[in-house]
């Protein structure tokens, strides 16, 4: 095979291509950003990296596909965004519920017992990694769980006996419609929904944290948990709320991801989780606006890197960029913590 030379011309040679790579990166960056929120919220409040958050997202993607199978059946069809909208909204609700439930379960089983006993942060980190494996494997073995209770026949469209670890696709393939072109990139209705839904949720969450009573409690706990507790803030409740919000956002991200990609698998959370975590660190971990900026920057950088060096280098480009940013700004691009956000 021909060796691929460094190809700056591919990216900067034509405005069309440049815009096309950028637009594609922004759409995926928005999904990174929504997942990154979960990492950043939990870190802001607990100074803990919740490594099991990628699995919270992965369960959301399955909830979306299952909702379609349940309401639509397994017949494979193409539908436009408009046709799929009612089921998609149901899937959004299901994904948010499932993801939030998994996040709350995580908090209850993997974190709260440790926090109560005053365990070092490192222990909670390991507990999170363990929970992440357990959740991913449980999804990969769901056909066996179903067969233990004798439901594998009834649930065979959901658990796919024998192929539970294989790729699982939404039976309804959402066919995007090109609305207009930016450069050579045909911007579709799906792309716009992904981008604007991500932005809207970010703004809503940002306002929630800055303006509401619950938001104030979250910020107070993030700033100084002991003083907050003395002032009557129920810190357990705040931690729960934080996980809940992270889970809801991951469920929304899962729905957008399934709209765009359409298939998932039991380890789908891993790579996206790493990317989202990177986005959170890049933007300044603990900072909501930083997560958005980090996600979008990462998505765009990956595509630019793919254009110049080839797709096999996209992760190298993204992570070198992360190191460079952290060298110059050790606390990330917007480096402000959740607690310091002003109302």
């Amino acid at each position: 095979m021909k060796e691929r030379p460094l190809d700056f011309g591919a990216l900067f040679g034509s405005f069309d291509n440049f815009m096309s790579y950028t637009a594609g990166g922004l759409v995926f960056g928005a999904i990174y950003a929504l997942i990154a929120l979960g990492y950043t919220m939990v870190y802001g409040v607990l100074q803990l990296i919740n490594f099991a958050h990628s699995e919270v997202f992965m369960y959301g993607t399955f909830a979306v596909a299952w909702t379609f199978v349940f309401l639509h059946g397994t017949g494979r069809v193409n539908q436009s965004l408009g046709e799929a909208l009612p089921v998609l909204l149901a899937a959004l609700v299901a994904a948010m519920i499932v993801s939030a439930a998994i996040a709350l379960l995580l908090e209850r089983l993997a974190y709260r017992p440790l926090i109560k006993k005053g365990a070092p942060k490192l222990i909670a980190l390991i507990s999170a990694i363990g929970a992440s494996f357990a959740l991913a494997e449980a999804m990969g073995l769901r056909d066996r769980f179903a067969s233990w209770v004798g439901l594998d026949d009834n649930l065979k469209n959901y658990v796919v006996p024998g192929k539970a670890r294989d790729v699982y696709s939404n039976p309804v393939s959402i066919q995007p419609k090109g609305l207009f072109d930016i450069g050579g990139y045909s911007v579709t209705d799906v792309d716009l929904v992904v981008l604007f839904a991500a932005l809207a949720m970010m703004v809503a969450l940002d306002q929630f944290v800055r303006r509401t009573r619950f938001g104030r409690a979250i910020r107070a706990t993030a700033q100084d948990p002991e003083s907050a507790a003395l002032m009557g803030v129920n810190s357990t409740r705040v931690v729960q709320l934080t996980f809940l919000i992270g889970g809801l956002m991951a469920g929304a991200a899962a729905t957008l991801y399934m709209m765009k990609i359409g298939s998932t698998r039991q380890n789908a959370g891993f790579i996206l989780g790493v990317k989202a975590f990177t986005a959170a660190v890049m933007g300044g971990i603990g900072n909501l606006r930083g997560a958005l900026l980090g996600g979008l920057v990462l998505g765009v950088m990956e595509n630019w890197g793919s254009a110049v060096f080839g797709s096999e280098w996209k992760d190298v480009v993204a992570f070198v960029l992360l190191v460079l940013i952290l060298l110059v700004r050790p606390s990330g691009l917007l480096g402000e913590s959740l607690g310091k956000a002003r109302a």
Partner: protein
Amino acid sequence: MIRSSKRWQALALTAVAGLALSACGTTDDGGSDSSGGGGDAGASPLCGKSLAFLGALTGDAGALGQNMVGGIQLALDEYNKDNADCKIELKTFDSQGSPDTAPGLATQIVNDDDIFGLVGPGFSGESLATGKTFFEAGLPSISPSATNVTITDQGWTTWHRVIGNDDAQGTADATYLTEKAGASKVYVVDDGQDYSKGLAGKVSEVLGDAQAGSDQISVGQTDMSAVVTSVKAADADAVFYGGYYTEAGLLAKALRQGGWKGTFMSGDGSEDPAFVEVAGPAAAEGAVLSAPAAPAPSDFGATGLYATQAYDATNIFLAALEDGAETGEEINTFIGSYNEDGVSGPISFDDKGDIESSSIYAYFVKDGELDLENPEQIQ
């Protein structure tokens, strides 16, 4: 409060233990109970022993391994029905297709005295990673599906395959694209694995000037927008993808959604109905998937790509058994001189262990489904 938190812990522990138990269960699905060796004094000493299968049963390409096991099991069932006094069992070893997992399992296989032959390994990467182990232990193997060219260049005389290698397929694919599909600018993408690079590399080589560009994605990648832009920027009228069905499906989907209208072609790693599921019926429409395998006869009792090859490979071992071969060396000699028609085509091996004649077929996605019954022979 305390009581309830203890109960939660107990629940979590039970769940974890359950996971651990079921995880153990995944490595060896096959019947490992050898039902009391043989019976007749004149029966082969191999009666009651086992063939092994090594390949992906779960994981990214688990569907392909399941197909192979279906073929092996069919051959064994037929044999065991006719030879009730000399039953042969199957032991499966799930490598998930990973060259990192396979060597450990290979060691298990060669240390298991019950195993007299191997159907597999399934994929090229794991074949390269384990070939030396099997060769040194003298365990004869026949792969139904590993097509990388370099495997048979290693001098492993116990290693055989009943499928044409990637040189044959790559040449046929490139020729199909330029001559039948009329493409003059082909963009070549692969996923960086041994099999994929081998096949895509051969396609590139044969294409020569008709290649418009190349890119490499990674396994597990879902965002294909950069590749789509590159393909469109190169003004390609065809894309060849070397790799497996998940990424192939996602790439085809992203290309169509990006408004690209050329011919999408991929090799045998993608020739699975799951390709259509991932891409969606509209994006998959018209895709061409090649495989060095004829469709199974209509009365064949197993389904899926590689099932016929696995069936044939198993039958070669069983024929060796009936021929009176007892040791690994004798079985190996028998395989070397084998010359019969299997369900997948005529089978005989050259000195390197490659099959001597193979045909390449192009399968098409029509009306939202992969048409497995009406392929076109392209070589």
